């Protein structure tokens, strides 16, 4: 028995968007492209635009490949079957160092110059959780009281091609409801065997694809898409119970759990650097070496660094490791007023994999929920290195 195309798509959308996003996705067009034609499409795109895709850079101590988003020049450069990059794609939008403005001195006077220029780039192979992270950053940086033009320029000039994947064993995107994505990309590709099922979300992507052989999806394609999504959804091994987590965080503010995990924390800030949604920064200014100018730079910061909450006069509002770790979990899992108190963690577990002290969000949250076995097994006295 076959359902109609529309019926199946409605079913799929209902199944995978249980949380209303408030954003329109009616403009989406669905096409199917063969893998050979897809290669031709990517090759053309990569040839004509500066493009970035996942490439293997190294392998870690257990022999797992380490991937990064790096410049690519052809389809063969891109590791489409990658798991997840070590560092997230946010750095194309929020670079580690970004010049905010520039001062030119002449005599006693000076002039300020601001430049929002960016060149268009193509980002290939973002995972649904990465795209969800970008949507969250959009909420935070563009919908607030003072939208960020720096971010807007980069976001508007980036062509995002998403791609679904089977999760790593430690991903918990499903618990955070970010294992599928409905918006925030130009083109999204789902692997359905011999072909890719394309969700086209922008006129740019549609115009490019007009030059290539695509066809409208049949009922079998839709069924294969549903099966693919079901497979992904059922492959999640890790689960974190985030029900009512914001209120639990409020209640457990003085919990000894924070001290316990805080004592393990090395305050290195790695988690914030690899996190796809951490956006806190510091601003610093420096003189040019000829003293004729100065630049104001924004530098991504981490709330786990010791001087994050220091005020003039030297008072530190969060002097202990545990305080700062707690603050990060507050931001990640309770959300702040700026983004309507929604959780900003997408569940990619990059922080857990990168942490030198072996602190894992799953363990911390389970611990906070006072789940007994987690308390007993997961906290060792010495930092476990991976």
């Amino acid at each position, binding site marked *: 028995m076959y359902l109609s195309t529309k019926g199946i798509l409605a079913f799929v959308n209902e199944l995978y968007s249980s949380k209303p996003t408030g954003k329109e996705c009616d403009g989406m067009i669905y096409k199917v492209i063969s893998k050979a034609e897809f290669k031709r499409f990517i090759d053309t795109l990569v040839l004509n635009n500066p493009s970035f895709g996942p490439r293997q850079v190294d392998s870690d101590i257990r022999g797992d490949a380490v991937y990064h988003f790096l410049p690519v020049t052809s389809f063969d450069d891109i590791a489409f079957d990658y798991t997840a990059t070590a560092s997230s794609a946010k750095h194309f939008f929020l670079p580690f160092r970004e010049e905010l403005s520039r001062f030119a001195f002449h005599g006693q006077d000076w002039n300020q110059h601001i430049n929002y220029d960016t060149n268009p780039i193509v980002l290939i192979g973002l995972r649904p959780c990465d795209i969800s992270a970008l949507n969250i950053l959009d909420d935070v940086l563009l919908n607030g009281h003072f939208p960020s033009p720096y971010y807007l320029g980069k976001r508007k*000039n980036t062509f995002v091609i998403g791609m679904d994947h089977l999760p790593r064993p430690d991903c918990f995107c499903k618990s955070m409801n970010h294992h599928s994505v409905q918006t925030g990309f130009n083109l999204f590709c789902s692997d359905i065997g011999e072909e890719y099922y394309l969700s086209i979300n922008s006129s740019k992507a549609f115009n490019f694809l007009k030059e290539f052989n695509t066809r409208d999806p049949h009922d079998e394609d839709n069924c294969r898409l549903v099966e693919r999504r079901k497979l992904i959804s059922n492959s999640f091994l890790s689960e974190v119970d985030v029900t009512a987590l914001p209120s639990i965080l409020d209640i457990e503010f003085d919990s000894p759990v924070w001290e316990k995990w805080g004592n393990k924390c090395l305050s290195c800030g790695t988690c914030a650097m690899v996190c796809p949604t951490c956006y806190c920064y510091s601003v610093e200014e420096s003189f040019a070496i000829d003293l004729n100018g100065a630049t104001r730079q924004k530098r991504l910061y981490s709330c786990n660094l010791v001087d994050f909450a220091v005020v003039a006069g030297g008072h530190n509002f969060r002097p202990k490791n545990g305080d700062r770790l707690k603050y990060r979990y507050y931001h990640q899992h309770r959300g702040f007023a700026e983004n309507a108190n929604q959780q900003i963690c997408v569940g990619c577990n990059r922080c857990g994999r990168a942490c030198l002290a072996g602190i894992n969000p799953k363990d911390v949250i389970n611990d906070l929920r006072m789940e007994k076995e987690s308390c007993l097994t997961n906290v060792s006295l010495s930092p476990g290195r991976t």
Partner: protein
Amino acid sequence: MPDKRFVIPRQDINREAFAASIPDFNRRSEIMKTDMGYKCSITNIVRLTEQEKLFQLHILESREREIFRFRPGQFLMLELPGYGEVPISISSSCSNHEFLELCIRKAGHVTSALFNVEKGAYVAVRGPFGSSFPMDEMSGNNILLIAGGLGMAPLRSPLSWINEHRERFENVDVLYGVKEPSQLLFTYQFDEWEMINHIRLHTIVEHGTAEWNSRTGMITDLFNDITINPATTYAIVCGPPVMFKVVCSYLDKLGIPMNRMFVSLERRMHCGMGKCCRCMVGSTFTCVDGPVFDYWSVMNLKEAI
């Protein structure tokens, strides 16, 4: 040679109309050059104490001077090119549209550099940012202003509002505590406040000197000097974090409702716009939702004071 059909068109937000329009910091949700400061010249510098100076700024462009309107309690970001930006609360009266007065303590990298500049130097301000004291809501009541140390700087702006609309308020008491008599700020205005504006000023120092012939002790000792009617009193408290706890819990015990006590918090802000998250208290930003909070919010925010 790139194929034009497959080149992604560039969207330059510099050229878009919204980026070119004049910055208006109090309007919300529009993209503007919020990083562009208003250029000011320093028209006067007054040394108040060994550690604090009062800087008088004049915004050069008349159009920008028109835009820059603030309410008592708001702050601005003061830019000293090459050194950095610091959040400074505005100490002058909000009806003074020509000059801004900033009371600055030599505390860090930027403020130390600022102490070396001379009259006529050019700096920039961005702002005003943040929330303000609800002066209209307070009208018709007794006002209790409690300042500790540098806390007098942000309180001078509401105090001048009160002075300008003195007939709207009943009794106004100012409790002002510092460590040593030499640290008292705005001493040249004390007589004016007391004689002309009929404000009852109570000062106290922790360590008195030989010349000091007024009270010695902690700021809470001043509560014995005054009578507070909790039903008709609004309190504004500003000072070091340790003072908030003591004073606010005392006022709470007296029976002043929590929503009638206002505190002005201090954090090291880097952007002033709720983006850098450096000034986060609990789940609110000091720069956007603060720096003026009522005591009820502060009580509920973790790590606020």
